[in-house]
C-alpha cells in the first residue's frame, strides 16, 4: 500500500508528552477524553528503501507475517477482536506502521499483543508459506491484472539509478518474495524490529501515567537491538532527460512524467507541495482546467508527489483523449509547467492552495487514529512537535518562493517520461 503522507499535520496544537524506555523505545502520549476509544500505534523505522536489492518486498512481506502469530501468542487477531479492537498496518518506502483501535478500557490488550510481536515473531513455516502466496496474489491483483499496473515499476526504475526508491514496496519482482527463506526473515526481523528502532504512540482516552506503567510493563523487558545506521546509496543528480516507451494491451495512451524534487528536510519541500496543488489539486487546478476542459487533450490528469523522506518525485500523469497524439499532449503539459516557471502566481491562487492546506489539516486531525499516525511520523522525522508548525510554514510561502522552486525542479535534464502506448 502506498500512503501519501503529503499533508498530514494539524492546525490545532496537538498536545503530547514524550518519554523513552531504557531499551530505546520512544513513547508519545496524546490524551483525548472525548472519545471512548484509544489507538496504539507502533511505527518501525524500516521501509522498502532499507531492503537488500536482491531481496526486495521484505518490509511489506513483514506487514503480513506480523499477523501470523508471535512467540507467546499463536494468533494475533483473535484476542484483539475479543477485546473489541481492530487493527491494520501499512508499509511505505520509508517506514512500516502498525496500529490498533480499541475500546479504551481494554487498552492493555493492545500493549500485550504489540509487545509480544516486538519481542519475537513465532516464525512458523506455515505462516511464511501462506503469506508468500497471499503477497503474490496481492502483486497480481494490483500490478499484473490491472491495466497500467506496471507503470510505476517502470517509472521508478527509470527515475532512480541508485537510490532504493527505485523499487516499490511490493517488491521489484515476484521471485524475491517467492524465494524468501526463514533464515532471511529472522535476520530481517532482529535487525529492524527492535525497540530502539521503533516509536510507540498512544492516543485517545488514556493518561500519561497509564501509558508509562503499561509501556514499562510490556515493552520494558524487550532487549534493545544493535543500532541501525542507515547509509543508503545517494541518487546522483540527473544530468540528462530520460524516457521509456511501453506498448501494451491498454485501452488508451498514458503519459507519465516525473521530476526529482527535494526530500522532507530540504528547502523547497513545502513549496513543491503547493505546486502540485496549483497544478493538480482539484477541478479548479491548472492542468484539469486547461488540458481536460479547455484543450480537451486528456480524459484524466493528476499532479502529486509521495511526500517521501529522501528526495522524491513530482509526478504528472494523465490519460490521453483518443486520437490525441503523445507529442501534442506532452507539449501541452510542458506549456503549463513553463507558465508556472515564467509567470508569478497571482496572490489569490497562492491563498487558495494555502486555504486548502489548512482545511486538509483540520479534517485529517479529527480522528485519534490520524493524530497517532502524524505524531509517529513527525517523531520519525526528528521531533513530533514539527507537526504543530507545519501550517505556519505553508502560510509563509510567497509567489516568489513558489516560482523559484518551480524553476529549480522543472528542468528538462531533471525529467523522466514514460510514454505508455495502447497497442489497440
Amino acid at each position: 500500500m502506498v500512503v501519501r503522507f503529503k499533508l498530514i499535520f494539524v492546525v490545532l496544537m496537538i498536545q503530547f508528552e514524550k518519554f523513552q524506555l531504557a531499551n530505546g523505545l520512544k513513547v508519545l502520549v496524546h490524551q483525548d477524553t472525548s472519545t471512548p476509544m484509544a489507538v496504539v500505534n507502533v511505527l518501525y523505522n524500516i521501509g522498502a528503501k532499507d531492503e537488500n536489492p536482491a531481496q526486495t518486498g521484505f518490509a511489506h512481506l513483514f506487514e503480513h507475517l506480523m499477523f501470523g502469530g508471535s512467540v507467546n501468542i499463536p494468533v494475533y487477531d483473535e484476542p484483539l477482536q475479543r477485546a473489541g479492537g481492530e487493527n491494520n498496518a501499512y508499509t511505505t518506502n520509508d517506514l512500516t506502521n502498525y496500529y490498533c483501535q480499541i475500546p479504551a478500557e481494554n487498552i492493555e490488550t493492545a500493549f500485550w499483543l504489540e509487545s509480544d510481536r516486538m519481542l519475537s515473531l513465532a516464525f512458523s513455516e506455515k505462516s511464511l508459506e501462506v503469506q508468500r502466496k497471499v503477497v503474490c496474489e496481492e502483486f497480481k491483483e494490483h500490478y499484473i491484472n490491472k491495466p497500467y499496473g506496471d507503470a510505476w515499476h517502470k517509472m521508478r526504475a527509470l527515475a532512480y539509478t541508485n537510490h532504493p526508491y527505485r523499487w516499490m514496496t511490493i517488491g521489484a519482482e515476484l521471485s524475491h518474495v517467492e524465494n524468501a527463506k526463514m533464515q532471511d526473515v529472522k535476520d530481517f526481523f532482529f535487525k529492524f524490529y527492535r525497540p530502539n528502532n521503533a516509536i510507540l504512540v498512544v492516543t485517545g482516552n488514556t493518561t500519561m501515567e497509564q501509558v508509562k506503567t503499561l509501556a514499562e510493563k510490556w515493552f520494558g523487558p524487550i532487549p534493545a537491538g544493535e543500532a541501525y545506521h542507515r547509509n543508503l546509496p545517494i541518487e546522483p543528480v540527473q544530468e540528462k532527460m530520460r524516457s521509456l516507451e511501453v506498448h501494451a494491451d491498454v485501452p488508451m495512451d498514458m503519459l507519465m512524467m516525473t521530476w526529482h524534487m527535494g526530500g522532507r528536510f530540504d528547502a523547497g519541500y513545502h513549496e513543491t507541495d503547493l505546486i502540485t496543488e496549483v497544478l493538480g489539486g482539484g477541478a479548479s487546478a491548472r492542468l484539469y482546467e486547461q488540458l481536460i476542459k479547455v484543450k480537451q487533450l486528456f480524459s484524466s490528469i493528476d499532479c502529486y508527489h509521495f511526500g517521501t523522506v529522501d528526495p522524491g518525485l513530482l509526478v504528472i500523469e494523465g490519460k490521453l483523449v483518443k486520437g490525441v497524439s503523445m507529442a501534442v499532449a506532452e507539449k501541452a503539459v510542458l506549456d503549463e509547467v513553463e507558465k508556472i516557471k515564467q509567470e508569478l502566481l497571482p496572490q489569490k491562487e497562492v491563498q487558495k492552495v494555502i486555504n486548502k492546506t489548512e482545511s486538509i489539516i483540520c479534517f485529517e486531525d479529527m480522528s485519534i487514529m490520524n493524530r497517532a499516525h502524524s505524531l509517529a511520523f513527525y517523531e520519525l522525522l526528528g521531533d513530533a512537535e514539527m507537526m504543530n508548525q507545519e501550517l505556519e510554514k505553508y502560510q509563509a510561502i510567497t509567489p516568489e518562493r513558489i516560482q523559484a522552486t518551480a524553476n529549480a525542479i522543472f528542468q528538462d535534464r531533471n525529467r523522466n517520461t514514460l510514454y505508455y502506448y495502447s497497442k489497440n
Partner: protein
Amino acid sequence: MALDRMKAPLIKDAVDFDIQLKPYQHFTLNNGVEVYSYEGGAEEVMMMDLVFFAGNCYEEKNWVAAATNFLLKNGTHQKTAFELNDHFEFYGAYVNRTCYNETATINLHTLSKHFEALLPVVSELVTESNFSEEELKIYQQNQLQRLTLNLKKSDFIANRLIDEYLFGINHPYGTYSTEASFNNLTREDLVKFYDRFYKHGQAVVFMAGKFPKNMQSLMNKYIGALPLNQQALPSYAHPIISAATKKYSIVNDASSVQGSIRMARRFPNRHHPDFPGTQVLNNVLGGFFGSRLMRNIREDKGYTYGIHSYLQNHVQECAWMISTDAGKDVCGATIEEVYKEMAILRNEKIDEAELKLVKNYMLGALLGDLDGPFQIMNRWKTYLLNDLDITYFNKTIETVRAIQPADLQALANQYLQPEDFYELVVY
C-alpha cells in the same frame, strides 16, 4: 514476579459496554425541507448533505440520473464550471456529488468559518445549473474512455454482472452503463430531470460538526426559500427479475492471472426481522479479518489477498454477497471452500468462544464507528432514509448481545443454501 506473556490481560467484554446512538436535533425549513443535525467535535469543521430523491429509480432513460448529478457542478447560469470550483476550492471546501438508486446528494465539507460564503453557491447548484452542450460533450467523451478502461478489469465486470443476475438489467439495482448510455444522453434529458428532481424536487438535509451561530437562519435563507418539497414524487414500480441461470464463467481477458469471484443471493431489507441476526452470521462467515472465509481461504490456503462477505446497502431489497479475486488456477477450489464453509454453518453449531469473539468485535467496532459527529450523523442518515428509528439501533445491539449458536444455525439453514446463490467468475 516475572511477566507472564502467555496470559491475556483482563478485558471488559464489549457486550457489556453501554453503546448509545446520541440523538439528533431537528428543524424544518420554511419550504418544508427537514434538517437533521448533530453538533459536536473539537475542530472547527462541518459537513452538510443535501439529499434529493433523484436516484436512478426515477430516470426513464439509462444514466440520466447519474449524469445530471455529476454535471450539477459544471456551470450555472451565472458561473462557469471553473468559477464554481475555484470558489469552493478557494475556501478549502469539498463539494462532492453522488448518485445512488433512490437518492442523489450534494455534499459539502468545510471549515465552519467559511460556511456562510459557500452556502449561497451550493444553493445556486440546486436551481441554476445550466448543463451546457459543451460540458455534456466533455463528460460523454471522458466517461466513455473511463468505461473502456474499466471494461478491462475483471472486478468491474463481475460487480456489474452479479447485480444484473440478482435484480435484472431493467431494475435500478441491476442496471449499468454502456457506450450507448453515454452516447444517447441529451441536454434536454438532463434539464428535464434536473427541473423535476432537483429544482422542484424533494429534499432532506443532514448536517454535522461545529455550526456557525446563525446556521438555521442561513439555511432558511438559502435552502428554505427554494421551491423544494412542493410536488409529490412520481410513483414507480421496478419489479425484480432475477436471472434463471445461476452459474456463470466469463473470459474477459485470456491472459488474466486472476479470476474475480462473486457469489450472491437475494436477501430482504433492514425491516425484515432476520436482518440483525444475519449480520452476526455474516460476520462469522466473511465479515471481518477473523472470519471463517478469511481464515480458511486467505490465512490457511493463500488463494487470495482478501475475501469478504456483506449484506448490500439497499432500500427495497438487499443481496448477500461474497466477493474475492483469486489466483486463476484456484478459483474452482475457492468456490468449493466457500460452499464448505456454508455447510459447516448449516450443520454445526458455532462454538461459544468464537461467537463471543464475533460479538465483542462487532460491538467494539460499532463503538468506534460512532466516535465523532460525522459518524453519528451518517448512522442516522442511513436509518432515516431507510425509514428506521432508534428502536432499530437498539434491537440490533440486543440481537448481537443475545443471539445463540442455535439461532445462527437456523439462519444458516434458511439463507446459506447453495442452490439460492448465483455464482460468477470473470477471468
